[in-house]
């Protein structure tokens, strides 16, 4: 090798070494002021009512804005930008004749928008009208339609007039800065998603928006006039790392301090715990219910005994132990244990192959020469199961279920679809002939009506409205669902929910599998990280109280 080439290589090596030493040490100085949160999603916008991506809501709803009545990690409502949560007992939530209601909120007087302008009930009334306008890009107006009008008798009092009973009428409403959005709204309501506020929001929360580098990150800085206390950590950086394996590598390498919306599996979480003892893996029970919808129009599945037999044939406890190390509890009903309406005393379908075979015999099935059952007409007992293609965990679950059902004489064929197809058409238009496996992400506000009422079965006639994909019809459940929809008293509503679950568990329109956990990570040296396990209440719900320990 020539001397000149050797000298060139030596220079390159020294430069690389220098860079390698300089940059990490320079960056280490910044980290105490900053928390880096990794996400496997990039927001589409930062106005929650227009955002499709959960990533947008995670940043704007919990850091840039403080809602009127948010949820905490115990799934309790607390007063955010209002003085108290309205209740029937205190009289600020009133039931009126004709099924109407009135709810009154008092806004905290010390809140401002981050540009210093007052944050008042007038912003709330304007936001309601803006969101209600059919030309605004509001994703859902379902709750807005239940409201007759909102008014502000004074700047810090909001009165909401409801035109029907709604059990969650005291959970607040979206409030946006009128003084910023109004001009864009007047010019063109349909263009609001492209407004400056959607990309560079000014909120009322503990963190101010600083920058959005598309494809890379969003930076927020502590709002120094935040009335509930200036955040201890000066800066939040939300990094978008779309691939969960790469995000996992970043966590292991301590290049992100926390994660939210990470698409991690339990195996990845256990791997993180093993490889990096500086990170905490949070496994938070959530309202995510993994289950198998059964098409009750099918000749076999319309028989309750067949459905119950299938539930007995699947060893869900073993599934949970083998695939999820026992961390994801088996579900026997459609609500998880943490939900106020959870009923622990519903009929349970424990693993019992003998019972499964007995039920199938009762239903008229007889063994065939190949070990697969035949029905009364001699038809072979075979079905297909669909789920999201490429989801490794679900595909493993399918394999286990296939083997377990084969043992009782049911031949299962796997027939998966990409998520876009499965959720776009297959479920919504009930195009699954037998079984489809997926998860519902629910909230404390979820009511059974849209999932289990017979008028919520999507058909061409009703323009595919409703989420009762199995097509379950039960008059008693319908009656309870309608009562629950309007029952304001929590204790009464809980009693109705428990009764509905008993009927549901007996009829079993769906095979419940397990409840999924919300999986987050955070650096052990960050104090006060308390994931909530609720969609809409992300890891940063209390990030103004986070602090780095030494």
């Amino acid at each position, binding site marked *: 090798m020539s001397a000149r080439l050797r000298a060139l290589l030596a220079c390159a090596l020294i430069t690389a070494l220098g860079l*390698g030493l300089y940059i990490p040490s320079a960056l280490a100085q910044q980290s105490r002021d900053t928390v880096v949160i990794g996400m496997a999603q990039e927001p589409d916008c930062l106005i929650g009512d227009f955002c499709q991506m959960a990533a947008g809501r995670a940043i704007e709803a919990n850091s840039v804005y403080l809602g009127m009545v948010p949820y905490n990690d115990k799934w309790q409502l607390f007063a955010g930008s209002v003085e108290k949560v309205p209740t029937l007992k205190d009289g600020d939530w009133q039931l009126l004749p004709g099924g109407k209601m009135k709810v009154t909120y008092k806004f905290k007087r010390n809140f401002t928008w981050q540009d210093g302008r007052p944050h008042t009930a007038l912003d709330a009334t304007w936001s309601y009208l803006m969101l209600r306008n059919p030309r605004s890009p509001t994703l859902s107006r379902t709750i807005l339609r239940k409201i007759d009008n909102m008014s502000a008798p004074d700047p810090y009092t909001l009165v909401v007039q409801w035109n029907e009973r709604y059990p969650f009428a005291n959970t607040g409403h979206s409030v946006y800065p009128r003084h910023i959005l109004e001009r864009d709204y007047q010019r063109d309501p*349909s263009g609001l998603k492209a407004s400056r506020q959607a990309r560079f929001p000014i909120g009322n929360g503990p963190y101010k928006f600083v920058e959005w580098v598309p494809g890379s*990150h969003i930076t927020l800085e502590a709002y120094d006039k935040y009335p509930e206390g200036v955040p201890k950590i000066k800066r939040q950086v939300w990094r978008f790392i779309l691939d969960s394996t790469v995000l996992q590598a970043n966590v292991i390498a301590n290049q992100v301090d926390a994660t939210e919306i990470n698409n991690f599996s339990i195996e990845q979480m256990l791997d993180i715990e093993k490889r990096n003892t500086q990170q905490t893996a949070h496994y938070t029970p959530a309202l995510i219910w993994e289950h198998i919808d059964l098409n009750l129009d099918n000749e076999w599945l319309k028989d309750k005994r067949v459905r119950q037999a299938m539930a007995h044939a699947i060893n869900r406890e073993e599934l949970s132990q083998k695939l999820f190390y026992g961390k994801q509890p088996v579900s026997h009903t459609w609500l998880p244990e943490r939900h106020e309406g959870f009923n622990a005393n519903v009929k349970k379908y424990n693993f019992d192959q003998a019972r499964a075979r007995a039920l199938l015999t009762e239903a008229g099935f007889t063994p065939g020469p190949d070990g697969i059952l035949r029905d009364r007409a001699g038809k072979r007992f075979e079905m297909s199961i669909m789920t999201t293609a490429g989801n490794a965990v679900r595909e493993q679950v399918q394999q286990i279920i296939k083997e377990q059902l084969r043992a009782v004489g049911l031949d299962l064929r796997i027939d998966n679809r990409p998520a876009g197809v499965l959720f776009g058409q297959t479920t919504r238009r009930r195009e699954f002939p037998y079984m489809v496996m997926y998860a519902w992400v629910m909230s404390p506000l979820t009511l059974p009506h849209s999932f289990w009422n017979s008028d919520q079965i999507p058909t061409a006639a009703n323009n595919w409205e409703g989420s009762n994909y199995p097509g379950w019809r039960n008059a008693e459940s319908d009656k309870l669902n309608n009562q629950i929809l309007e029952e304001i008293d929590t204790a009464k509503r809980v009693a109705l929910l428990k009764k509905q679950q008993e009927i549901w568990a007996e009829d079993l329109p769906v095979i419940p599998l397990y409840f999924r956990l919300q999986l987050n990570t955070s650096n052990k040296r960050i104090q006060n990280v308390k994931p909530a396990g609720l969609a809409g209440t992300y890891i940063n719900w209390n990030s103004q109280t986070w602090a780095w320990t030494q």
Partner: protein
Amino acid sequence: MQRFLARRLVHGVIVLVGLSILMFTLLVFTPGDPVELLAASNPDIRPEDVAMLRKYYGLDDPFYVRYFKWMRSVVRGDLGYSRTYGTPVAKIIGERLRNTIWLVATSVVIAFVIGATAGIYSALRQYSKTDYAVTVLAFAGHSVPAFWQGIVFILIFAVWLPWFPAGGMLTPGVAPGWPAFLDRLWHLVLPSAVLATFGMATWARYTRSSMLEVIRQDYVRTARAKGNPEKVVINKHALRNALIPIITLVALSIPAILNGAVLTETVFSWPGMGLLLFQAVLGHDYNVAMAVILFLALMTVVFNLLADVAYAMADPRIRYE
């Protein structure tokens, strides 16, 4: 030459229009309507909301009407709005294009310098251990999938040996000026190394072949016979002629590298056009996806043309009519 250029331009336009029809049709008929997906995630959504959203996003027209509207606006210079981000597509692409140029340009330079140097060295020492080593590494470089290589690099150089960042383009909060420039370079090392691998392997092999052919020519033997130092024989006589086909190859490879950047940018979360295309296709953001695909197709057409022109300029024996 002018007639040749004119003909090639017309061909290029036909290719672009044909490709736009094909890609638009494929995107539109890809299962998973974005509004249906939105509706599926919200059990309380009503049909009238769904209808309103379809109208808002222009999804209620037949696909050929949508294509015609899109083409008409593109011809007028308007690439439309991103359904996901609600911002003009041109603005989004502009932001990302710069990042992709950084990555691709660095990769091309690395690939060319290392690949060509290795090829030349290998040719001059044919059948030596170095030659065999370069050949084996070149085959390995061709065979290794970029996605896998990227994840392995992250594992080795960011996790086990924390020398480089595990993705991203810059460290948030770094001071502007030189620190930001150096930080950008630091982030560029791993993704450009991955993206350059295939190019290095290709150009090493081609340079070796081209060099071997040239050094056996009579004029090279004559140059040696005249008493020129070996360095002059190689650099002045052999190398220039050996590099003529390589120039063409470089021009033809750049569109391939641009397309290959999709995987690399995804693995390293490098916010470029490739990652944008990946996100747009997954999110059914038709305007963005079409704009990026058209851009990549345009680059392929342009660089093909440039390759032909450069070849004609470098080699006076080549004439186009």
